[in-house]
C-alpha cells in the first residue's frame, strides 16, 4: 500500500508494473487500474495549461486514510495511488489508482471507490490556463456515479 505525489510527469504503466512486483505472484489474481490524464479541452474552451496545488502533509495523510479504509472494506493484496502536482501539460498523467486482489470484483470496486473518494476528499485543487492567458480555478469535479 503506497501513496506518492509526483512533481514531474510520471509513467503510470511502468509504475504499475513496478508496484506489482511487491505482490506475491501466487496471490495476484486480479488488478484493476485507473489512469486519468490531462486533456486539452474542458467545458468547450481550450485549456493550454493546468496547475495542481496540494496541501503537503495533509494530502498524503488523506490518501493513506482513503486507501486504508478501502483495505478494511475489500480484501486487497496491494494498492498504489499516485497523483501529480505542479504545472501539468496536456497528455500528462494526473492520477493513478491501482488495486490488487484475489478477486476481480474486489479489485474493481476498491479501485473505483478510492478514485471517487480521492476526487471528493483529498486536498488537491486544479487551476486551468486558457488560450487567451486567463486562469480559472476548477470549481468542482464531475460526478462519478
Amino acid at each position, binding site marked *: 500500500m503506497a501513496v506518492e505525489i509526483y512533481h514531474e510527469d510520471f509513467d503510470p504503466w511502468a509504475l504499475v508494473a513496478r508496484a506489482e512486483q511487491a505482490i506475491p505472484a501466487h496471490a495476484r489474481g486480479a488488478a484493476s487500474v485507473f489512469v*486519468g490524464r490531462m486533456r486539452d479541452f474542458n467545458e468547450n474552451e481550450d485549456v493550454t495549461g493546468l496547475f*495542481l*496545488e*496540494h*496541501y503537503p*502533509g*495533509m494530502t498524503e*495523510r*488523506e490518501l493513506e486514510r482513503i486507501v486504508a479504509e478501502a483495505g478494511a472494506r475489500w480484501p486487497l493484496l496491494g494498492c498504489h495511488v499516485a*497523483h501529480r502536482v505542479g504545472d501539468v501539460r496536456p497528455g500528462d498523467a*494526473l*492520477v493513478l489508482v491501482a488495486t490488487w486482489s484475489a478477486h476481480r470484483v474486489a479489485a474493481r470496486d476498491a479501485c473505483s471507490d478510492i*478514485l471517487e473518494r*480521492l*476526487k*471528493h*476528499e*483529498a*486536498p*488537491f*485543487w*486544479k*487551476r486551468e490556463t486558457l488560450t487567451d492567458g486567463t486562469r480559472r*480555478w*476548477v*470549481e*468542482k*469535479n464531475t460526478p462519478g456515479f
Partner: protein
Amino acid sequence: MTVRVHYFARLREELGRSSEEAELPAGGTTVGGLWQQLHQGTPPERLMAAVNQEQAGLDTPVSDGDEVAYFPPVTGG
C-alpha cells in the same frame, strides 16, 4: 496562544497570502470563530477546513499550537 493558519488555491490567491500566525482568545476558539476573528465576516459558503491536517468543521475546536487550514472544495483526480 498562537496558531498557524494556511490558505490554499483560490482562497490563497484572493487573500493574497498562503499562511499567517493568529493569536487565540483566552479559552480557545473554533474553526468558524477563528475565521470570523481574522476576516471580520462569516465564512464563505462551501468553505472547507482542516485542523492539524485532519478534516474539520466550523465547530471543531482550535487550541494553542494547532495548524488550521482553510480551502475551497477539492478538485483533484
